[in-house]
């Protein structure tokens, strides 16, 4: 496994970013679900972590996009049908869009509710908007709606990967697995 991507497989950094973001998103979902039932100090703490991890995802997403531009993107196998290519393209664009849109809507809603976003209490990010109840409610709803969209697109993404592996029997899944090499 190389550090950079090749036309045949993903490099170490691309894989690390992919799986780190996956784990962070699952973690975000668990924290958010738990925070719903909390109040006072416990809620402040839970949402403090949620926002810090969210900004981490945003920063990783930026690195990931830049890295993608700096590297070759491994090809789909030659036998991949046009509709599969299109579906893969759409789902990848949506996934990239969502890993930006989720943190940004979260950042907006925190700003609009005057609960500034910080990174693990070390430093604060600037507020994107001033206090604004309308923006808060809109971005709050959008944040939830986009998460539902993320779950659906991620399910499609996983289904595609599994189809490549079990039905098409190619290495599309294996080349993104953390320790999966490509023959």
């Amino acid at each position, binding site marked *: 496994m190389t550090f950079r991507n090749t036309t045949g497989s993903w490099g170490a950094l691309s894989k690390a970013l992919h799986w780190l973001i996956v784990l962070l998103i699952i973690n975000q979902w668990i924290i958010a679900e738990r925070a719903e039932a909390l109040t006072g*100090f416990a809620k402040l703490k839970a949402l403090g972590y949620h*926002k810090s991890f969210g900004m981490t995802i945003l920063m990783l997403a930026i690195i990931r996009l830049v890295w993608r531009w700096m590297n070759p993107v491994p090809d789909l196998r030659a036998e991949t049908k046009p509709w599969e290519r299109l579906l893969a393209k759409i789902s990848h664009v949506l996934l990239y869009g969502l890993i930006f849109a989720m943190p940004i809507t979260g950042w907006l809603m925190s700003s609009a509710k005057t*609960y*500034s976003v*910080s990174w693990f*209490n070390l430093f*604060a990010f600037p507020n994107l908007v001033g*206090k604004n109840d309308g923006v808060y409610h809109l971005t709050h709803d959008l944040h939830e709606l986009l998460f539902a969209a993320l779950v659906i697109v991620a399910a499609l993404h996983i289904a595609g990967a599994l189809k490549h592996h079990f039905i098409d029997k190619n290495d599309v899944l294996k080349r993104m697995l953390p320790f999966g090499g490509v023959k």
Partner: protein
Amino acid sequence: MTNYLAALTAVAALGAAACSAAEPPAQAPPVAAPAANAAGVSHYVQAAAGSQLNFSFMQAGAENQGEFKQFVTELGYEKENLAASSLQVTVQTGSFDTQDKDRNDTLAGADLLDPKKFPTARFTANSFAKGAKGIEAVGKLTLHGVTRDLKLPLDIKTTATGAVISGETVIKRLDYGVGQGDWKTTEWVGDEVKLQYKVALTRAAK
């Protein structure tokens, strides 16, 4: 007999004198202000508008801001007689707003400001002094039932009809017990609370 009565009257008179003599020292602190007044300290009371008392603190790494909307200020001031100058500020602790209902409700809870139990906070200074950064009101702040010494820096601008005092200082909330239970930790909500004040006053007859 007459001697005895005279003696009794004398004793009674002495007693009365002793009582009246004992009274002024007991009243000494309140009497000090009018006495100073005579020495030329002007009296000011808070104007109907133009005053603000803001506070800010760090929460989860970011600054949070709020203000107290109801407070009453009285100032006795003379530039040449700082020792006799005085300041009293009484704040309705329940009148604060931090721009968010959730945060207001939390801050008004029994573990934090608790305005139900401690409806007022008061700063009282009976003398001013020249500090490193200018004039300071040397007094005591009673907040959340705890009284501590506090020197309040004041920038004082007087006109013929009034005065504006302003300044800022930092107090530590835990010094006053604001933060019980989970809130005792300063990891999520900082100990330091910055107070910024600007009070418009009008000159009063008193």
